[in-house]
């Protein structure tokens, strides 16, 4: 059996082989390796050609079956806008023509053809199958008339066909046979459609933890991709066996595929601890509002025609149009049991306070000189990983030589979940005995990796304690020594006992008083500026000089008027000239006594009232006493002289 495609492939290979057998100049220049590759391909092509020719010769030599035509539809009905597949099978060696009928509102489009050659009991049957898509946008029952086909010189016709086109809104189309079903989300019947949680113990080579140990865990929320999620609570343990600690506030996000489904995975890190030994389900829950795409909802009709007439685009657009289902759900983890082992009773050190983990003494400081009864500050930094909450300040050894007071501690976390880090202790201690002593810091913890208690002690430091031994009640010492490990502290800071003053919740800026105060401040600034301006104006030297000049002029004119009234001609001229001198002196920036007739004659016209008046005044001053009856004329001349001085100058 040789198909048409095999034959065309053989021809293509033949052409390639011929081209390779007569290489052009470019191929000649190619490397020997390339040339051998071309030779191999040419040989293979020749072999395929020979095989195809043998089959063809066999086909031509053997009798062929009688020509037949047949048409079938892959379905009887189809929704409007969709198409059924019509297969036209023609058996015969030579097909001359195919006449497709025309039916109103019915669309028939060719979708390709395939040829088959069958050899059966010496007979060769060559068949051609043409495939057409048949459909309509108008509902109704369509009769497809016989299709006339010319084959082997005969005119054959198919039997008529009937196709029902249904209203698309009323019916969903069944998936066409032979075509793969659309990619759908697998129906989720496990109750995890909206996501779920997983809890993973992040302890190496261990699947258990010890009482009091804070074991690091990774809590992962698996949320369906393309879902919208809003968290409504924090991660909570379902039972009372476990407690979560320091769950990271900023989870990490990634995309992962699980069981063939793509998820958005949100991962928190934190610590988990238990107070009782046993096996308990480590189930956690998380309240969230999750919106996922409703894959059960009817999908939109596939698009036909246009640039997006492709199943690929149908899938994308279909997903975009799929409605969302929003639900408030509680994501839960599987109830996988976690073993909690008790801390061994044997070998428990006296100073053990419940710290479980792996700790070390980073640094410590202690003064070298002490005095009995006086507290001294000691600081120590313990690093490592574990439950820092139960890690108390290291003790001073030997224990009976010191009295220790509780101090402060600060934890510097080394990771997001505060599982590792450094805890710094600052506390005070009082030496009970005088003299030289070797002091060291010591603390104990349980190491879960080795399942054993460890006690770390700093190198001893020799300190000098002055003063005499303290005398105190021995019962206090024994009771303090026998004190049990402190229970875990309540994280909630306690009540305030003092009554604080009454305050206002409304801030000042939200009250009208704020605007008034700002307005008052602005007013004060304006007032200050005004005062400063006034002060500057009052102390201006030019203004002061001008005022003095005005006053001197006014006084001189008053004296002149008085002398004129008393017919004192000499006094009149003296005072009047002084008034003009003051005015001109200020104008010419010269001392008033320096203004003489010569100065005036040099600057002003000789026939001006000022020059005339000064001339008359000089005559009067140098012995030519004018008659008192001319005083009115001199007064008029004085008025003209003063008027000739511009107001600005005055």
């Amino acid at each position, binding site marked *: 059996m040789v198909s048409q495609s095999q034959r065309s492939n053989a021809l293509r290979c033949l052409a390639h082989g011929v081209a390779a057998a007569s290489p052009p100049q470019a191929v000649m220049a190619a490397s020997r390796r390339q040339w051998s590759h071309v030779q191999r391909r040419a040989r293979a092509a020749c072999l395929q050609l020979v095989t195809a020719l043998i089959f063809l010769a066999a086909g031509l030599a053997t009798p062929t079956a009688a020509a037949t035509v047949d048409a079938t539809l892959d379905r009887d009905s189809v929704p409007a806008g969709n198409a059924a597949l019509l297969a036209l099978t023609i058996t015969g060696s030579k097909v001359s023509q195919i006449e497709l009928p025309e039916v109103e509102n019915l669309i028939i489009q060719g979708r390709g053809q395939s040829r088959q050659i069958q050899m059966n009991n010496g007979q060769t049957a060559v068949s051609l199958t043409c495939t057409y898509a048949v459909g309509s946008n108008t509902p109704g029952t369509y009769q497809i008339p016989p299709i006339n086909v010319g084959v082997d010189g005969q005119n054959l016709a198919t039997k008529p066909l009937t196709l029902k086109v249904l209203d698309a809104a009323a019916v969903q189309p069944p998936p066409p046979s032979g075509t793969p079903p659309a990619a759908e989300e697998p129906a989720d019947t496990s109750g995890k459609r909206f996501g779920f949680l997983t809890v993973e113990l992040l302890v190496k080579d261990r699947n258990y933890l010890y009482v009091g140990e804070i074991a690091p865990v990774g809590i992962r929320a698996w949320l369906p991709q393309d879902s919208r999620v*809003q968290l409504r609570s*924090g991660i909570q343990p379902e039972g009372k066996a476990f407690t979560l600690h320091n769950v990271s506030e900023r989870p990490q996000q990634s995309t992962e595929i699980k069981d063939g489904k793509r998820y958005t995975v949100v991962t928190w890190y934190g610590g988990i601890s238990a107070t009782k030994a046993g096996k308990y389900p480590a189930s956690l829950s998380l309240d969230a509002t999750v919106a996922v795409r409703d894959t059960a909802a009817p999908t939109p009709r596939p698009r036909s025609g246009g640039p997006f007439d492709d199943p690929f685009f149908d899938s994308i657009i279909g997903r975009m149009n799929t409605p969302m289902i929003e639900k408030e759900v509680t994501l839960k983890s599987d109830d996988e049991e976690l073993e909690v082992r008790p801390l061994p009773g044997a070998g428990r050190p006296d100073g053990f306070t419940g710290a479980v983990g792996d700790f070390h003494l980073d640094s410590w400081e202690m003064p070298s000189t002490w005095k009995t009864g006086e507290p001294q500050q000691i600081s120590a930094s313990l690093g490592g990983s574990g439950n820092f909450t139960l890690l108390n300040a290291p003790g001073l050894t030997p224990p009976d030589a010191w009295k220790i007071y509780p101090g402060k501690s600060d934890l510097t976390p080394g990771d997001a979940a505060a599982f590792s880090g450094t805890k710094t202790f600052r506390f005070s201690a009082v030496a009970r005995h005088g003299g030289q002593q070797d002091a060291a810091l010591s603390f104990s913890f349980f190491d879960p990796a080795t399942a054993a208690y460890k006690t770390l002690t700093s190198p001893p430091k020799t300190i000098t304690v002055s003063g005499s031994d303290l005398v105190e009640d021995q019962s206090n010492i024994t009771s303090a020594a026998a004190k049990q490990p402190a229970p875990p502290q309540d994280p909630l800071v*306690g009540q305030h006992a003092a*009554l*604080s003053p009454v305050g206002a919740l409304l801030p*000042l800026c939200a009250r009208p008083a704020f605007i008034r105060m*700002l307005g*008052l401040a602005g007013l004060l600034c304006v*007032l*200050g500026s005004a005062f400063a301006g006034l002060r500057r104006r009052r102390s201006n030297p030019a203004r002061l000089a001008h005022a003095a000049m005005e006053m001197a002029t006014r006084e001189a004119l008053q004296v002149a008027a008085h002398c004129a009234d008393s017919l004192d001609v000499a006094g009149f001229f003296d005072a009047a000239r002084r008034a003009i001198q003051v005015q001109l002196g200020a104008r010419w920036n010269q001392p008033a006594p320096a203004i003489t007739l010569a100065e005036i004659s040099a600057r002003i016209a000789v026939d001006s009232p000022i020059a005339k008046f000064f001339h008359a005044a000089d005559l009067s001053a140098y012995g030519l006493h004018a008659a008192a009856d001319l005083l009115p004329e001199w007064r008029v001349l004085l008025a003209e002289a003063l008027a000739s001085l511009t107001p600005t100058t005055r």
Partner: protein
Amino acid sequence: MKRSLRIAGCFFLLANAPLQAAGVSALEQANQRFAAGNYAAAAADYDQILTIDGPRASVLYNLGNSYQRLEQYGPAILAYERARLLTPRDPDLLANLTLARKAATAFEDPRRNPRLEAMLNHYSRDEWSWLVAGAALFLGGLAVLSGALGLPRRSWCPAVIIAASLAGLALVCGAGALYLRRDEAARGIVLNAKAGVRLSPFDQAEVLGTPGAGHSVRLGAANGPFHYVEVPGTSLCGWMADSEVAAITPGGGKPGG
């Protein structure tokens, strides 16, 4: 004048002494109930003290502790936030507020630089307001004194310039802080875990989402017994019943229309 002021001060103290004593005894009683584990009764007592006396930081703090013990994180965070308006640097308050936020998974959205945020929140809005008003009044007074009297000695000039510069700096910093924190006037806290943001201000309206107890929301206009709210950091916005959300600053949000 001084004598009359002293007399007035003494009179004020004497008049307030019984009220103060009553408040102290009520606080002690409420604290005793808290210590006995009767948190609901303690919360009621603290509420009564606040109703009678007015807002007190310590009482609001204790009230928040009571609600936190009752696992009512919405009212607890509301009480802590109100206490923070009065004592913004109280370490106990900040620690318990962080605990409540953590328990309610109602974390604050860090919008700005954390260091800048810490600087802005170091003082309450009231303190920043007083800083601005004080600096402005100081500058105004300085202007009047300098303008009216002048500086008696030339050596005082640098001191006055430094003081004015500091006041100006305080004014600018305070005004900047108030501007950057202007959104806080309309902050509200969701009281119930089931409190829903509705499509319209009606009881039967569709619930668009539940922000969760203790979450901060931005309060908008009021409409009857509903307030328009926006949940920061999300696209969730709608109407929420007044019984399910409370403004941190009384009168927060816009008046109803």
